[in-house]
């Protein structure tokens, strides 16, 4: 799944570790999601949406990453 996580993170000047800490996951998880190699569950996707204060569809799209 394609996502804008890297862009959203860069806009806030957060490192992967910063985002991981905010999501309470590992940095490896953030990297795997960001590169489109691991699709997060719905609860984690909602958590990301809440964190960035945007709808889930503004982060993820169902195109191939």
């Amino acid at each position, binding site marked *: 799944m394609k996502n804008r996580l890297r862009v959203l993170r860069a806009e806030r000047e957060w490192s992967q570790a910063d985002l991981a800490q905010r999501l*309470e996951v590992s940095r490896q*998880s953030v990297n795997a999601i960001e590169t489109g190699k691991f699709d997060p569950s719905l609860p984690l996707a909602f958590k990301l949406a809440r964190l960035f204060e945007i709808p889930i569809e503004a982060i993820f799209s169902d195109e191939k990453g």
Partner: protein
Amino acid sequence: MKCLTSNPAARRYYRRFVVTMLLYALTLVLTIRGFIHYHPTGPLAWMLAVLPAIPMIGMLAIFALYLAEEKDEFQRSIGIQAMLCGIGGTLTVTSVWGFLEDFVHIRHLDPMLIFTIFWIFLGLSIPVLLARYR
């Protein structure tokens, strides 16, 4: 394990794993010494013989517990995939070995080694799985 580094579930897993390993060593020594010195027979011999298997089963149980407690879904997914690699690798090796034993008469595979083979495959699969997500 490489992927289980610094969260509470991983730390609990490591703690439990060390305790289980110590229990395994203890029960193994007890069983060996018991058979050497007391030559048990009947049900007592059976119970003493399977005693070290209890912590071995415990190792599987604490891994399952880790998977249940791990809140990081990516790490959990790696753990599950590693377990599948462990099971798949073990079944592959033991099946191939079984045919070789039957038809080419190679050395008999000690069933005690099967558990070790499982953990070797599980452990080796983790860095490979993590590399796939980099």
